[in-house]
């Protein structure tokens, strides 16, 4: 029981930045914008967060700095993609590579330096409770932050006016414009908000999960995984968060498996999430394949079982909208 709880605590920890970034990207994509720059944004904000914390000796200032950088990158993408009408995917991809190199370039002097981290928060009184104690009694602040962010995103998206507007601009910008919503502005706002969450994820890496900065930092590739988790999560914050924890579990199990198979070099386990990412996406699309549909039709009980397996993207995801051209 104790070991199980500790493993789970490890998953929460490893999953925290994934959850934060996934929620951020879910918000952005729900508004119809694809921010492909995640992998680079996470690295650059991780570097910034670490650099600022070291310089000012205050990790929370670092978190703010990371969020600012994440929002800044998303803002660049948003302005070029939304107002200048360029391909979101192309600009996102350029930003990915650019931010990654920028992080290595600017972070050169902070490489392998000691620096502060966010430490642990202890919630008094629950440390002795079985299971709950090891799980939540003493955890990194980013874990509490990520869990709170799941709730906040869900509540915002499905329980507030703002959430309805958010989904509306991602679903049909034309119709939203017809209802008097300033579509481009709303989209830019969620681009920024999503970017800030992604930046927070970067800070969570360099200040809590894998403290420190270097080349490589250790979170390379996480951004791509996050983009896949958003799809796996069906653009729903809770399901997306579960997906993030699933991938965190895979990362953790890689560490265990390394002990079981010492002959396999360690870096091989680090790439394990990627084939699993492809297989997950493949599995999710099976519901749309003809032979699977025929199979389900033949065995009606499968119909209910497979409900919710296939997910629909926001209808206007990645679509450009220019109100000047009219409806």
């Amino acid at each position, binding site marked *: 029981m104790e070991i199980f709880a500790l493993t789970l605590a490890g998953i929460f920890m490893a999953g925290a930045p994934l959850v934060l970034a996934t929620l951020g990207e879910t918000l952005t994509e729900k508004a119809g914008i694809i921010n*492909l720059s995640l992998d680079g944004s996470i690295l650059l904000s991780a570097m910034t967060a670490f650099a600022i914390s070291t310089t000012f000796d205050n990790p929370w200032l670092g978190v703010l700095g990371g969020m600012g950088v994440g929002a800044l990158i998303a803002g*660049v993408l948003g302005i*070029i993609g939304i*107002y*200048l*009408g*360029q391909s979101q*995917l*192309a*600009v996102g*991809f*350029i*930003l990915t*590579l*650019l931010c*990654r*190199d*920028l992080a*290595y*370039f*600017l*972070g*050169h*002097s902070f490489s392998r330096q000691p620096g502060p981290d966010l430490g642990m928060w202890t919630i008094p009184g629950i440390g002795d409770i079985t299971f709950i104690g090891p799980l939540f009694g003493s955890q990194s602040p980013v874990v509490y932050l990520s869990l709170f962010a799941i709730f906040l995103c869900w509540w915002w998206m499905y329980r507030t006016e703002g959430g309805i507007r958010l989904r509306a601009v991602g679903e049909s910008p034309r119709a939203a414009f017809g209802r008097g919503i300033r579509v481009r502005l709303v989209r830019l706002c969620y681009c920024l908000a999503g970017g800030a969450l992604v930046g927070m994820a970067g800070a969570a890496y360099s200040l809590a999960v894998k403290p420190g900065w270097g*080349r490589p930092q250790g979170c390379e*590739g996480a951004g*791509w995984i996050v*983009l*896949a988790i958003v799809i796996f999560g069906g653009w729903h914050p809770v399901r997306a968060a579960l997906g993030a924890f699933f991938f965190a579990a895979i990362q953790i199990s890689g560490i265990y498996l390394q002990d079981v198979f010492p*002959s*396999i*070099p360690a*870096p*091989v386990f*680090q*790439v*394990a999430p*990627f*084939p699993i*990412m*492809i297989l997950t*996406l*493949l599995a999710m*699309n099976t519901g*749309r*394949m003809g032979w699977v549909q025929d199979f389900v039709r033949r065995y009606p009980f499968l119909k209910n079982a497979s409900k919710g397996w296939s997910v629909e993207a926001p209808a206007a995801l990645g679509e450009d909208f220019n109100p*000047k051209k009219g409806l």
Partner: protein
Amino acid sequence: MKRDSFLEQIGWLGAALGLALLLTVLVALPAGAPPFETIYVLFKGGLSSISKIGRVFSVWVPLTLCAVGLLLPFTARLWNIGVEGQVIMGAIFCTAALRPYDEGGMMQIAIAIGAGMLGGALWALLAGLLRVFGRVHEIFSGLGLNFVALGVTLWLIFGPWKRAGVASMSGTQPIDISLWLPKIGKLSVSWIGLALTITAIIAVYFLLHRTKWGLKLRAVGENPKAATLFALGPRRRLLQAFMICGACAGLAGATQVLGVYHRLLPAISSNYGYTALLVGMMASYRLGLVPFICLFFAILNVGSIQLPLQMGLDSSLSGVIQGVMVLSVFIIQGVRMWVREREEVD
């Protein structure tokens, strides 16, 4: 639609370069680097001697191979983001083909090059199949396969192809000198690599602009649904485009093994796949521009090696400049559209 005059186009190009320079200076400042001296060192490092120009061309060869190959999937409006992994696979297959030989000649080199192209093409086919039949977006299939290819390389270097006694990031046992691509004089670039690259450029030009296949591929990219109605076999066409691109990338991987590193190592692809994607975007997928942009990027890459030595800066500045340039091109394109829109309103 109104076409801009030649002068105007030059003006916009100048604006893009100016913006790129400005942005580069801006991002270089926080690193405490004197911007103009840094840029001077960068270009001097790439152009100051014949041997350096030779090295520039040895970078130009794989970069151009990847970039022209990428034009085919781009024409079909697909991103072969997996080109990086296809370079790696090409290198793996190439190394595998050479393992039985302790030494050899042109025959073995030809086999190795063929194997490299096959490796790249197969890896691209896998990404293509995932896209066409599995409906996994090519960004994810390609990217995931890049990481998998890297994993395979690591496994081979630390596992079955381990150098006797040592297993390290420095790679496998080097191949015999008789299997190296012949060099031009003392330069590090090989005439075989150059010839193959120029052949690839011409072949892609003919494929895209002089054959029915190219027209069909363009049609598939324009509208895949209509391509089905016209019975153009869009799926087959897409897979073919992917495989040819993969073969080019595999060829690039083979030249890396045979001509540059003479062994398989984890960094065998040198990021050329990703850089080639940037080249393609910056060229707006026009073949004529690709070799020149590749040349420029190659100069930056070679020159950046001097940065850590002379200025204590990280060599990734070349990547930053490349990214900033492509981004500037996109920004200026957007501004141009915006200006034109305003003109139309008035």
